[in-house]
Structures are given as structure tokens and as C-alpha cells.
């Protein structure tokens, strides 16, 4: 037994991220670790990789109890992690990043650059990566960065490699490249833990599956005998039939029309109409241009050619301010950074886009702010003590509701939701969906970007799939994950760098 975890526990402040983490990994095994966002997969793996320390439970490495205080200790015994977000030094070269923290040294702390370059080149050639050791990392595509991370983990001669959703930003051919590497590692008797929440793509590489839900290990089984339906059931904790599903309403007049929109290097000739009362899902891989489309509609990026109509009227949107005036709202994907003023109270966030309605001659009326905030809290069922509570202290789901309330208060008619459930736990997701549904029922038009296919299937009336900046197909709401994946990935051959 390479790695064994028994009843692992980890708490962050008031949140018990991991309650009972169990996992057994053998050498030469590809072990899939599955679960929804917030299930505790990443926390468990961060403990294994020495990035965090357990609060309780047993952590055995090759039969011996261990507790790594930092990543260096984990690397010393042969555990390496390929991270989801690129954890590289952007100003340094590919070779320097591969050897970061484990430089080839000459006496007196001097680094042996020629040797590192040569070793890096050999490694890159061996795996046929489209990289050069001297390239600077900030010039690489997300896929290129991912490959640097993989090179780094392999170079360190690890006996256990943890992949944290490495393919979420890769095209299909690149994904297969990653799978090939995983297979090579398995042949070399390296243990591989592969975190994912994509159900299908791993049938071809996985051996064993362990599923986490709400911080607990729910189930572990060989991949061969585990059906997809049961996998989903274990992940969400209830049979498929009882999962939230929106009842569509008949669509009204066209609210948002996009005609022949092209912008930047990515977006090409996009045509789309979203009607009142409709939720349109936007599917595709990361980097397909979905976020870029939202940014273009919202006036963050300028539109090169094409037109945007709101309620039939041609509008020219050159800045977010003009988008807001036109009745468009954006709920951005990185809530913490661009959606929410975390250090401010809920009330300040709620009235942020709507100061005019609560102020008189430039003076803000505290009473009006309170009234507006209380109304928003009631309407969106934001769970908090009162409007004076800091927005950053709320749970992910309630934070998201605060972001939405900002636009509801403003009376927006068109909502762009970019990954609205990112970092939100399972229960709260449904509440966000319910808010979206309610907005649609009141006549709003909603465009929803999501990388989680199950989510699109649950909420969207129809799903438009994007690939490399183009729309590649449209599917009715009652479609299958396979069809979306097919449209999202086929013929993909994005270039690295």
C-alpha cells in the first residue's frame, strides 16, 4: 500500500472541509478522486502534498504514519502535485520552472544552468511536448503551462503523482496527451491520483474510483463495475430523478440579440438571441471564448464588428457603465475578485450599482439603503444577521446572492451568469438556480456559462455550445452530456504557446 488515509479531518474556521477522508492507493494504480465542488477532494490532496496539515485522522505513507509540514517534505518522499491553476513563476523559463525548488547545483549555491537546460530538453523531447526549455512561462498558453507542471512532477522522480483536474483547460488532443503520460506512469509503477468531476473522460485511464461528498468518503470501487448513474448518485447524494430541474416557461419577446459579433483574436461571427423568460446555457471547454463573449456583451472588451440589440433596439456598449444603463447585468466567474466587495457590508454591495435610487443631491440616505437592502435580503433569501454584516463573511452561495441582488435592485433585464456556482456547495447551488428561475419567470433573459454539464442540463432551456470562439451547435435542454462534450471538443486542435 503506497498511501492510506483513514478518517482524515480538516477544518477552516467555521467550515469542516473534510470530515472523514478515507483513501487507499496502490503503486501502479490510477485512482480517480471524484466529487462535486467543495466535496473535500482538493483539501484531502493538499494535505497529502504537504500544503496543508490535517486536524485529525491517520495519514500513512508506505505503511508509516507521516504529517508533512510543507510541500518540500512531501516532495522528499516522492509525492508531487500537478495543480489546477498554474502554479508557476511567470517570469522564469520553462527549464527553471521544471527545476524550481530542486535546482541542479554547483558548489557555493551556484546553479548549473547548462545541465538544467539539457535535462529539461531531454524530458520535453521524451514526452513530445511542444515546448522549449528557454521559453518564458508567461508566454505559454494554459495547456503549455499545464505541461510544464507535469514535466516538473515527473522530473522530481515521484512515486505518487496527484493531478488536480489537469484537463479542465485542455483541448481533446492535449487531453489525450495527458492520458498517455498517465498510462506511462502507471507502467512505471507510479501511483496516480486524478481529481476530476468529469464523468466520462477517464473511463480509459482509471483503475479505481473514490467518491467524496460533503467532506466524507462515500464510496470506493473499481471503475469497471461502477456505472455512471451510480457515480452521479454517490456524488450528489440522491438518485438522478430527484435532482433539481427547472420547469421551462414559454419564452417571450427577444431581449438580447447578438448579430455577427466578432472581437479580439478569439470570437468569430456569433449569432444568438435570448428571449424573456428564457435561460440559455453556454457550454464548452475553458478557453472556448464563453467568458470573452460575456465580457464583450458587458462592454469590458470592445466589440470589433457586429451588433447587439436589447429589446429590439440597437445599442452601442463601450463600457460596463453603458451595459448597465442598457439593463444588462454580469455575475462574473471570479466572484471574490470582481463580483463582490468582500470587505464592505452587504448593504454597500447591494446598492453599489444603484446609488442614484438611495441618494439625494449626492448624499446617501442611510434609511433608503437599509430599506433597499432589507428588501433584497428578503427577496433573495440571503442568510445573514443583517445588512451590516461583511459580505466576505458569508458562505459562497450567499455571497453569490449578494452579487445578484446588486443587479436585481438595479432592475436589470438581461443577466449574464458566468460560472454562477463556482465554489458553492451542493445545497446552495439549487438556491442559486431557484433565484435564476425566479428572475426568468419575472421576464428576465438569462445567459448562463457553465463548465459543469450536469448544471447546464438542470437549468438551461436550450444549450449553445462554443468551441474556439465559434458556436458549434445548439441543443435542447433535455440533451445528454455526451452530446455537449462532442460538440465542445471535436476537431479541437488548439496550438500550444
Amino acid at each position, binding site marked *: 500500500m503506497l498511501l492510506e488515509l483513514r478518517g482524515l479531518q480538516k477544518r477552516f474556521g467555521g467550515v469542516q472541509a473534510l470530515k472523514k477522508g478515507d483513501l487507499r492507493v496502490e503503486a501502479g494504480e490510477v485512482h480517480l478522486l471524484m466529487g462535486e465542488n467543495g466535496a473535500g477532494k482538493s483539501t484531502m490532496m493538499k494535505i497529502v502534498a504537504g500544503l496543508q496539515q490535517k486536524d485529525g485522522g491517520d495519514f500513512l505513507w508506505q505503511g508509516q504514519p507521516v504529517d508533512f509540514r510543507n510541500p*518540500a517534505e512531501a516532495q522528499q518522499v516522492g509525492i508531487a502535485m500537478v495543480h489546477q491553476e498554474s*502554479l508557476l513563476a511567470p517570469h*522564469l523559463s520553462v527549464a*527553471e520552472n521544471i527545476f524550481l*525548488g*530542486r535546482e541542479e547545483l554547483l558548489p557555493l*549555491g*551556484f*546553479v548549473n544552468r547548462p545541465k538544467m537546460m539539457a535535462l529539461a530538453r531531454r524530458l520535453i523531447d521524451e514526452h513530445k511536448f511542444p515546448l522549449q526549455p528557454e521559453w518564458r512561462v508567461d508566454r505559454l498558453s494554459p495547456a503549455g503551462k499545464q505541461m510544464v507542471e507535469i514535466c516538473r512532477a515527473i522530473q522530481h522522480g515521484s512515486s505518487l503523482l496527484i493531478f488536480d483536474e489537469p484537463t479542465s483547460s485542455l483541448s481533446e488532443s492535449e487531453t489525450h496527451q495527458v492520458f498517455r503520460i498517465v498510462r506511462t506512469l502507471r507502467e512505471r509503477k507510479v501511483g496516480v491520483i486524478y481529481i476530476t468531476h468529469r464523468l466520462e473522460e477517464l473511463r480509459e485511464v482509471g483503475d479505481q474510483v473514490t467518491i467524496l461528498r460533503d467532506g466524507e468518503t462515500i464510496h470506493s470501487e473499481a471503475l469497471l463495475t461502477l456505472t455512471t448513474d451510480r457515480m452521479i448518485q454517490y456524488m450528489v447524494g440522491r438518485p438522478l430523478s430527484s435532482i433539481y430541474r427547472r420547469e421551462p416557461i414559454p419564452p417571450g419577446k427577444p431581449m438580447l440579440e447578438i448579430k455577427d459579433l466578432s472581437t479580439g483574436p478569439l470570437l468569430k461571427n456569433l449569432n444568438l438571441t435570448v428571449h424573456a423568460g428564457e435561460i440559455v446555457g453556454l457550454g464548452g471547454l475553458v478557453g472556448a471564448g464563453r467568458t470573452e463573449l460575456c465580457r464583450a456583451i458587458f462592454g469590458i472588451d470592445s466589440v470589433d464588428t457586429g451588433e447587439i440589440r436589447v429589446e429590439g433596439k440597437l445599442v452601442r456598449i463601450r463600457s460596463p457603465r453603458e451595459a448597465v444603463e442598457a439593463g444588462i447585468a454580469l455575475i462574473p466567474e471570479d466572484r471574490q475578485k470582481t463580483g463582490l466587495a468582500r470587505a464592505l457590508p452587504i448593504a454597500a454591495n447591494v446598492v453599489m450599482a444603484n446609488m442614484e435610487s438611495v441618494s439625494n443631491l449626492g448624499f446617501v440616505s442611510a434609511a433608503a439603503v437599509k430599506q433597499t437592502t432589507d428588501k433584497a435580503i428578503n427577496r433573495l433569501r440571503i442568510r445573514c444577521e443583517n445588512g451590516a454584516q461583511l459580505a466576505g463573511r458569508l458562505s459562497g452561495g450567499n455571497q453569490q446572492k449578494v452579487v445578484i441582488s446588486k443587479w436585481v435592485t438595479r432592475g436589470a433585464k438581461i443577466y449574464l451568469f458566468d460560472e454562477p456556482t463556482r465554489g458553492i456547495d451542493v445545497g446552495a447551488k439549487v438556491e442559486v438556480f431557484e433565484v435564476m428561475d425566479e428572475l426568468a419567470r419575472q421576464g428576465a433573459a438569462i445567459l448562463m456559462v457553465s463548465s459543469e454539464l450536469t448544471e447546464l442540463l438542470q437549468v438551461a432551456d436550450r444549450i449553445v455550445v462554443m468551441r474556439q470562439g465559434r458556436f458549434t451547435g445548439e441543443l435542447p435542454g433535455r440533451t445528454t452530456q455526451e452530446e455537449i462534450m462532442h460538440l465542445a471538443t471535436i476537431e479541437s486542435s488548439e496550438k500550444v504557446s
Partner: protein
Amino acid sequence: MIQRLLPFLTLIVLFVALCFLSPYFFTETNLSSVVRQTAVINIMALGMTLVIISGGIDLSVGSILAMGGLFGTMAMQSGKPVIVGIAVGLLAGCLCGFVNGTLVTRLKINPFIVTLGTMGIIRGLTLLISNGLPVHQIPKEFSYLGEGRLLGVPFVLWLLVICALAVHIILEHTRLGRYAFAIGSNPDAAFYAGIPVNFHTVAVYSICGMLTGLAGMIEASRLMTGQPTAGQGYELQAIAAVVIGGGSLRGGEGTVLGTLVGAFIMGLLANGSDLLGISPYLQQAIIGAVIILAVTVDELRKRKIG
């Protein structure tokens, strides 16, 4: 490429222009005095380059300069040999840097705030210890450090070249230097790679402190006094030199050569204005404008590539 060389070209153009504009510029006396004047800022700026590359900043170097100079001269006043006095100055600076680095890493507070605090603390302690009075009883030989000549050029120029080479080698060829880049470039990546981030951050601040201590001794030697009020405002000049030379306050970028060029541009601007009779008040404004201009050009270059 042209934009990358711009600080260089600016320096050359400035130099040539001054040769034509003033008959007193290209004389040995004047050039020596430019070298001596800029050496202090230059050596501080070398340490600052390290700190800024690692994503930090040190506002306390002006105060460290004064403390180093004071302690060094006090040691000489008490009868210690000159070389011991200099060592005391360097050590005092190094210790101040060590404290800065330790506070930044242990308290996990923004280095701007930490060093804003130690700027006051170190200055206050220096004034307290000296009672606000300068140290005058210094052996005559000590003046060689700041005013002496070796092989026909000012001794401080040799010192500057040695320090610059040392910092360049540290940055480009040693683990410490590469880690400074990695930490400034992406601190999380550095930590996740198993780099002892705290240790190397402390090391970087300590080296900066030691170089500042050396600058303090040079300053003391030129004035032949240990001035507890020395070095006020020098921190901004040192930071400006790094930034004009292409260093990024976001970390991960900067070069020794760039910093030297930056410091000499400021030195020549000051010297040229003096020779041409431009008001010292206007000088400050000119240097301020140059800082903004240099960083704007650099940003434009990066955006074009990015």
C-alpha cells in the same frame, strides 16, 4: 528591443549632451564627483534591486544608512581600527535588514508597512543613541573610503563595480537569486515548489541592509562625520533608480545593469542641472517626471509583448 535599451540610450544621450553644453562636465574633477555622489545611492539601489525583484520593498534604507554610519564611526571614535569600524557599519545594516525580513515573513504584513514602521524605529533609535549629535572624532585614514583613489579612479568606483558584479552574479547564477525571482514572480508557486520562501526573503533583506550599511560608511567617510540624520529621502532615490532601470514593483523583474543606469541617469540630471545653473527646485521636478516617463515606456513595452 529599442525600448528595452531606452534607459541606456537616455544615459548616453544625456552624457553626450552635457559634454557639449558645459565645458566643466567632461573633466576629471567633475566626473569623479558624479561617481562619488551617485555611489551611495547606487550601492543602496543594488540591495533594493534584490528586494524589489523578490516582490518586496524597503523604505527603511535611509534610516539604516544613518544607523550603519553612526555605529561604524562610534566604533572608530572608541579607538577601534578603521576596518573594524567599517565592519561594524556593515553588520549593523545587515542586522536591520534581518529584522525587516523577519518581520515581513513572521508577521506576514505587507513590506511597505513593515519598513515604513522600521524606517521610523531605526531613525528614532539612531537619534536616541547619538543624542542627536554627530560623531566627529574619526581617524583621518577613514576618508580614503569615500574620497581616496586607486589606480587613478575614485576608490568608491571600484567598490561599486565589485558590489554590482556580486549582486549580478547572485541574481543570475545562484540559487538565492533565482529564488528571489521565483518568489517575486509568484510567491505561491515558490512555496508550492518547496522553496524555503521565508529564509530566502530574510536573506534578501539582510543583503540589502548590508549594502546599505556599506553605503552608510561611504557617506560617513565623505562627510567625515557619523550623522544620525543622514540619508533622509535616499530610500526614494534608490527605489527610483531600480524602477527607471526596468524593475517592477510587482516583483519578478529587474537587473543590476538597469539599476546602475537608472542611478546614473538621476546622478547626471542632478549634476547637469548644477553645471547649467538650473534651480535645484526644478531638478526635483525633472527627476520626478523622468521616473514617470521611464515606467510608462516600460509598461508600454510589456503590454505590447503580453
